[in-house]
């Protein structure tokens, strides 16, 4: 099953990507993906990050399904 991960602002700059596709061979929680990205991009660790699954803020406990859209980003600063 395939999922998509979006990056914005600082996380896009750090990861060098705005969007990546990932393959999952077994059922996983969102946390599994987020942890993997944190490992892959050590610079993420020095920032307060937020996560979303399918355009909703996520705790990480969400069970992923094929076609899910995840995102990882720093604390928002609009307004």
């Amino acid at each position, binding site marked *: 099953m395939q999922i998509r991960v979006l990056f914005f*602002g600082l996380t896009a700059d750090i990861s060098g990507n705005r969007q990546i596709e990932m393959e999952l061979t077994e059922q996983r929680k969102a946390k599994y993906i987020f942890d993997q990205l944190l490992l892959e991009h050590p610079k993420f660790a020095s920032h307060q990050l937020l996560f979303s699954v399918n355009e909703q803020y996520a705790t990480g406990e969400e069970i992923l399904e094929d076609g899910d859209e995840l995102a990882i980003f*720093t604390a928002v600063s*609009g307004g």
Partner: protein
Amino acid sequence: MDFFELTTEPIDITSVSRRVVPPECGATVTLDGYARKFTKQKDDTTRETLYLVYEAYEEMALKEMQKLIAQARQEFEISNVGIVHRTGRLEIGETSVVISVSAPHRKAAFAACEWLIRELKRTVPIWKKEVYADNEKWIEGEI
């Protein structure tokens, strides 16, 4: 009618604030947020911003705005809410966000507008980058 939009065009405050006016209403309160020229740094020096770039997770930002309006309607006796946030490059002094709230009694309009901008800054996935003469920085909010 409530509305919530993202736009890359300059925001006209009047047109936002007038769109929330229903005939039975008495007052509209509007928050106009715009780019500061000088921002204080953590070391207490001030830094001159040349321009800003706002980036949004558009679909989620619109969903979060819609949720905020629904919550505001539960909490305050208001008539209509309009929220427009600009994205892309903004010059200093240009409006980044307008929130207009109409209500039969102005007290509720003030309270709801103040609540909406506070929550928007906390929950709506939009990020601001300040661009300086020699550098640039993505601003991080507080969780």
